[in-house]
């Protein structure tokens, strides 16, 4: 079985495979977040997407998010797979699997993971519309970074 907990892939993601990585006899809850390509964003129709990643750094950032989660919720297991390349509407861009003895923590840790991915993991999305294309960043969806610094936690520069 593939036991790399954090992956960037250029093929469709098998959600069952990501889930298997967090299965545990101690788990009472497994929470899977599946990010899918939405057709309409603010009324604008997306034809398809392209994702690009700085893969080795993205993996390191996934590991850092995992470490942050372990500090907050020690009993949680987490696995993340993000896809790159061409994605069509309803295709899966990312799967985050979290297992925990109790469900409340699974929801919290999973949501924490996706929020942090959107803050610190170097992955970019290019939207293809009927009237053009654009690499998405703070222009449309994300908050601009504070000057000169990413919105990350202290200790990351050590």
């Amino acid at each position, binding site marked *: 079985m593939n036991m790399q907990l954090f992956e960037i892939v250029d093929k469709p993601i098998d959600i069952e495979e990501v889930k298997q990585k967090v299965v545990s006899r101690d788990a009472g809850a497994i929470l899977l977040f599946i990010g899918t390509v939405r057709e309409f964003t603010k009324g604008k129709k997306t034809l398809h997407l392209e994702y*690009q990643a*700085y893969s080795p750094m993205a993996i390191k950032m996934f590991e850092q998010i995992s470490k942050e989660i372990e500090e907050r919720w020690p009993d949680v297991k987490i696995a993340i797979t993000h896809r790159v390349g061409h994605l069509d509407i309803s295709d899966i861009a990312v799967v985050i699997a979290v297992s925990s003895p109790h469900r409340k923590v699974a929801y919290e840790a999973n949501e924490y993971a996706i929020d942090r991915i959107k803050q610190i993991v170097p992955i970019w999305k290019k939207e293809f519309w009927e009237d053009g294309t654009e690499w998405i960043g703070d222009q449309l969806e994300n908050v601009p970074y504070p000057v000169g610094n*990413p919105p990350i936690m202290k200790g990351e520069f050590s």
Partner: protein
Amino acid sequence: MIHILLFAHLQEAIGEAELRVNLSDYTVGQIKGWMEKQYPMLSFQQMMAAVNEEFATDEMIVNDGDTLAFIPPISGG
């Protein structure tokens, strides 16, 4: 010699995914200034950067053989 990695709109605008330049021992901030001279249509001052796959401040010095990646606003997930 340092490696500069380019992604997303930077990669498309410059037409390269990687540059090799003789800018060892300059700071990230100084290299941003150099890039803006080379590519005046692009803005680097407020952009995040990573040295050897770790986020880096403008004050960090980039050593010979290091990899400096410019990280435009991200949109993964």
